[in-house]
């Protein structure tokens, strides 16, 4: 295979264009980043204002309340550690959503895949004894990954084979997973000594080691961070990730260019399930120490919102997840400190989502407008 050798310059001078181009390119990148940052700052401000209004409405002092929220999230090492720990599963769920959504696979089954991963991890944790720490933990985490991926499998199989809409099928699998694990906990794997319905406690060798003694922050957080970078590399630097993204942007074009469209959808869905399943494992082995039926406060759904907030970008998921975690922790502290109910946090989240979705729509609008406007050449 030969590559053509003789360069044939066209009607413009090449070298001047390059320097001119790179200078203006830098400028345009900076401008773009500034615009995005300004947009998000504005949306955040408005959402906080909305929450502030709610607090006023309830007859309390917003500044005091937000102060308590901030303190609850970031006031002191222990609290920061707690926020970071809460962010671990959110990062993983966000990554799961990002991979699927970028491939235009609508995996709404994150919550169910989370549950299955969590339970499988717990099972490996309390069923095997006498294993060295490193091995036991690896098995626990692997169990989460495999269970999450397997629970995503039926939906994508049905889609590929019989064109069953994955929106509804993944949602049904959510409910089935939650009920199924509830059953497992209530009957075969019940821990009679427990206060809350749950499985037996995981062996000490299956618990994720703490990062800061005395806090709940464990290596799960490091794992989540590392995976964010791995997924980022995968999506933007590997050929498989490139395929997923192209299929997500224009599947017909991808097929015309020779890319494997169905395999890409399959891979995206399995990776998605694996990532959020891992998140479940991290929550169980890192925080709870056993599987309890109410372990998730909607982490799977939060993952979707986080990914949408971050424009489905793996690295953007990190700050979005940290923000969410901070809001949740801060909310609880705010409630006990000032009596303002943490549902205010839901308001902030809801407004944030509303505006982000509107922002997404404004982006649509911008793109449409750019097509009408005179283009760059």
């Amino acid at each position, binding site marked *: 295979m030969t590559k053509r050798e003789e360069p044939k310059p066209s009607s413009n001078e090449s070298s001047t264009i390059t320097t001119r181009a790179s200078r203006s390119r830098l400028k345009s990148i900076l401008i773009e980043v500034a615009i995005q940052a300004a947009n998000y700052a504005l949306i955040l401000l408005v959402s906080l204002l909305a929450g502030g209004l*709610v607090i006023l*409405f*309830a007859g309390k002092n917003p500044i005091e309340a937000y102060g308590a929220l901030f303190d609850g999230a970031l006031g002191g090492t222990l609290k920061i550690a707690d926020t970071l720990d809460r962010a671990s599963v959110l990062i993983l769920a966000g990554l799961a959503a990002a991979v699927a959504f970028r491939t235009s696979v*609508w995996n*709404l089954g994150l919550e169910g895949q989370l549950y299955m991963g969590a339970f499988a991890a717990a099972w490996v944790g309390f069923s095997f004894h006498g294993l060295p720490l490193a091995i036991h933990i690896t098995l626990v985490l692997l169990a989460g990954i495999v269970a999450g991926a397997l629970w995503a499998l039926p939906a994508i199989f*049905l889609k590929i084979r*019989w*064109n*069953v*809409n994955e*929106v*509804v*099928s993944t*949602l*049904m*699998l959510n*409910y*089935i997973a939650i*009920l*199924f694990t*509830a*059953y497992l906990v*209530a*009957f075969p794997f019940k821990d009679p000594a427990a206060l809350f319905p749950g499985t037996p406690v995981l062996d000490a060798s299956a618990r994720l080691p703490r990062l800061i003694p005395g806090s709940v922050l464990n290596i799960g957080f490091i794992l989540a961070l590392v995976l964010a970078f791995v997924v980022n590399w995968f999506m933007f630097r590997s050929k498989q990730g490139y395929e997923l993204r192209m299929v997500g942007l224009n599947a017909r074009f991808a097929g015309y260019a020779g890319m494997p469209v169905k395999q890409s959808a399959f891979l995206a869905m399995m990776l998605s399930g694996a990532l959020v399943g891992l998140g479940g494992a991290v929550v169980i082995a890192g925080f709870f120490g056993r599987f309890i039926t109410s372990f998730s406060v909607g982490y799977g*759904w939060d993952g*979707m*919102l986080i990914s*949408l907030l971050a424009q489905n970008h793996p690295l953007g998921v990190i700050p979005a997840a940290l923000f969410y975690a901070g809001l949740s922790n801060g909310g609880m502290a705010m409630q006990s400190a000032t009596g303002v*109910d943490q*549902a*205010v946090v*839901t*308001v902030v*989240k*809801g407004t944030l*989502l*509303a505006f982000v*979705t*509107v922002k*997404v*729509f*404004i982006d*649509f*609008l911008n793109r*449409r407008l750019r097509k009408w406007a005179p283009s760059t050449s």
Partner: protein
Amino acid sequence: MGTLDILGRILTISLFATTLRMTTPVLFATLGGVFSAQAGIFNVGLEGLLTIGAFFAVVGSVTTGSAWGGLAFALVSCLIASLGFAIIHLELGADEIIVGLALNFIGYGLTNFLLIAMLDSTGFFQSPLLVGFETIRISLIDNLPVIGDLFSGHFSLVYLSFISVALAHWFLYNTPWGFHLRAVGENEEAAVAVGINARLMKYFGLSMSGVMCAFGGTFLSLAYLNLFSEGMPAGRGWLALAAINFGEGKPVKSMVAALIFGFTDALAIGLQQFGLPSQIVLMLPYVTTLVVLVFSAIRQQRRATATLAAAAAAEA
């Protein structure tokens, strides 16, 4: 106990009566989705609309002191929500699935927040001020042996839900606007070519989603139960999507699927008396939905290949 005994204990008249009651909320949501589907929009926000309807029905009932007042509040709020969906999807051009999802999230979050802000409660709200619906006895059939037990003594909304199926069918297949709406959903170019305002039809379809879900949500909080709780619809909005898929967007066919789900819901309650674990039994509606989904998909695929083959044979 022999099998016949067991069946006899499960398949009671009361089970079928319960089925009708359990079908109602899913059926309303299904009809809501049918209208937007016929206009060509896949509305995944039904769950959110049901939540909004259920919540504002309670607010309305407490405020006006009547159940019908509650319904009125529900109707207004759901209409506003679905018009919001319509504007963002139709005017701003956003993807219908994302907007639908947003509607669900916002519905969930907003109602939880308002639960505290307006009703001063967390998680769920119950009050003696809440006026719910009463059941109706139809004197004509009330004393008949089987029919009376089956069909009399339901909430008015139950009867309304099934009547709505007939109304929806009549509207879609016998009125000019029904023809226009369906044309927009099936072949928008054909509709536009004869001067039908496609955008208006889509607004109408989405508004009807709101109206139907208002009824469905009201039923949940003012009839089926007399309270509002977080996550009340419990996935019925999603079941409705499966019903629409099964029924290919047609009111009567989709009703059949909704009845199946209502039946499994009622069955789940009934089976619990046998000491079967509640969690397994409660899975029934969702597993059934999956099975129904797969069957409809296979059937639709087979029919598509058959049409192609027939066309080929006709050409030959």
